[in-house]
């Protein structure tokens, strides 16, 4: 099952190495990791998308992460109400004739063209991973020259539904 796990960490040297090393040492499959600073000085947030077999393995993941001295907090937010976003840039082969065709494809995705050259356009798209996937699939027939994705970053919504009204909902299934 796919899970989104976030960790706030002390931004000390070696912390990224320690965390990623731990994940590979314990054989966790990481789909993506994104890291960035937070509103607190010296504290960063990591967002992992992981593929784990079962709850036991998931529990191990969060416990092992928590055990690291510089890890302040670990949360599995998959089943919470969350906002999760990813950014992708896609360089698509295109000549002036099909540029407008591409424009019309990306419009419903609220993506934008951020660079144009003679043989290519670069599309930027932000959103949930499945939306990004869908757009990439649509662009693929034109020929993708280059693709870069940031990986998911996520946190919980300001308002969490009460348990009674809570419907387990996973962005990533």
């Amino acid at each position, binding site marked *: 099952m796919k899970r989104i796990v976030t960790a706030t*960490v*002390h931004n000390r*040297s*070696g912390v990224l*190495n*320690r965390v990623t*090393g*731990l994940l590979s*040492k314990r054989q966790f499959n990481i789909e993506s990791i994104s890291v960035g600073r937070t509103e607190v000085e010296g504290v960063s947030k990591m967002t992992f998308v992981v593929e784990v077999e079962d709850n*036991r393995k998931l*529990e*191990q993941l969060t*416990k*092992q992460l*928590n*055990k*690291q*001295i*510089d*890890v*302040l907090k670990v949360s599995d937010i998959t089943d919470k109400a969350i906002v999760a976003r990813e950014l992708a840039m896609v360089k698509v082969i295109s000549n002036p004739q099909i540029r407008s065709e591409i424009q019309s494809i990306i419009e419903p995705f609220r993506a934008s063209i951020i660079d144009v050259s003679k043989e290519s356009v670069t599309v930027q798209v932000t959103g949930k991973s499945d939306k990004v996937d869908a757009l990439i699939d649509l662009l693929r027939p034109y020929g993708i020259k280059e693709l870069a994705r940031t990986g998911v970053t996520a946190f919980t919504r300001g308002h969490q539904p009460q348990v009674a009204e809570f419907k387990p909902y996973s962005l990533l299934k």
Partner: protein
Amino acid sequence: MKVKDLFTPLFPCTNLRAYKEVEGEEGLFIFSRNKQEGLKMKAQASVKEQTATRTGADLLVEALIEQGVDTLFGYPGGAVLPIYDAIYRAEGSFDHILPRHEQGAIHAAEGYARVANRAGVVIGTSGPGATNLVTGIADAMMDSIPLVIFTGQVAKGVIGTDAFQESDIMGITTPITKHNYQVQEIEELPRIVKEAFHIATTGRPGPVVVDIPKDISSMVHNKEIDSDFHLPGYQPTVKPNPLQINKLHEALVEAKKPVVLAGSGVIHAEASEHLKEFVRNYQLPVTTTLLGLGSYPGNDDLSLGMAGMHGTYSANMALYECDLLINIGSRFDDRLTGNLQHFAPHATVAHIDIDPAEIGKNIPTDIPIVSDAKAALESLNEKTVKALDHNEWMKQIDQNEAEYPLWHNQPEEAIVPQWLMQKVYEYTKGEAIVTTDVGQHQMWAAQYYHFDRPNRWVTSGGLGTMGYGFPAAIGAQIADPDSTCVAVVGDGGFQMTLQELSVLQERGLPVKVLIVNNQALGMVRQWQEKFYSERYSESIIDTQPDFVKLAESYNIPGYFIDSQEALEAELPKILADDKPAVIDCRVLQKENVYPMIAPGKGLHEMIGVKP
């Protein structure tokens, strides 16, 4: 509290007074360099006014003294020259043990830590010095041994340029340390040292590496530095959740077939007395892990001995058949559990561990208790004791013990290792510190030497490090100079670190090195015999040094013993002697360690339970 030892101030700084106090006989040092406090003490030393220069290395020395460190295991080299200079100038502050290989230093520090139950401190230089420490760091990580390891590093300016003797020791040791640091600024050094000791010795103990670039250790720094630390990400849960304790208590009074499994967590938490009280209150059968030996008296009626691959039949069957398993401070290692499918299949499993990640890692747990073993046992012991209805169970266990005790061959003349271990036990009255290497002799020592108290048994469990036993004995003997210390080693493993005989020679340390000499890599040979149709690939070693001459070349008495008669005549004298000794004891090569759970088999499928 009496002031026994007063030493001259270490740092040529103005207005700094240094005191060392020794409390009782236990070697607990309290150090204060606080002027106010110092004045309250009876003795003081005054320092001559000097123009002060204090380097990063002096800060390190100062911080070590503040931590109560009095023993260092280390080996000098280019990147730690400033540190060794500071140690030199701090004359008399430390007993520095110089092994002949860094691996010897770190295993000695492990032995020291295990017996003294405090952090062992290691120093190594950059590059090869640091990489030579790696095996010991991994070993300490696996067995939760508190160590603080200082490695030199090339100067900050050249880190990352493949400078002479540079190695990425942070990268190398990240997966095998509880935590590691590279000091980036001199101002951080005192804080990092403090944190390192705190992390190494609290919660689940483990090794912490502090990598110090040479420019930092040689940099002059005279200002006072604040060393306070705050580790919001490291707050071990020490006290148990009372609701979970209630749950365990309820399960206990209901249990018909309870058993306690004690691991080294009990020893680290100094909870043996609490365990005794708990076990005796309810008359519970107790088995221990390899590393848990000594956590509960091995000779006690309620003790089943060790469990696991070479554990006793009664211990393993108790784990197999129990309806309540109370694991205190063991991590359910695979050498203990055997095939997980057959591990305690009918039991409610309660697991007390200070490391939450161990709970549920290998065995699904019904009653998880995250806590220090002592605190959990204290809470349990506060509950009303109720006599259990478990007579049938105890009878069954007694029957197993009577029917399937440990057994071995007993030839007329020749020595078998099992008999040898019994003799060592007898001659030392069970009171020696026993360290072992890894292999058959280790299992026999575990089976036949019964420990009645903790901190007497020093062995490499998790990593199974050959070459561990002898240097560990050096550290153990230094931690407890008055006890008899026997290093039980194989002829194979001893040859991995025997260069440390120099340390015995140098210090006259009375360690008794008992080579259980089967002229083979016995454990490998046994597996080849049983599981590879006797194809003894590279496991029979006929060529050996003359161990007696070897010992003599270090000015250490060497003995050759190859019969029961000779052993009975000589060993008691050797063990009672206050000199070091190397004993080449020839044993039958083809003895196997039994009983055994073959790889992949369950607890109830032991082989070799009867002759």
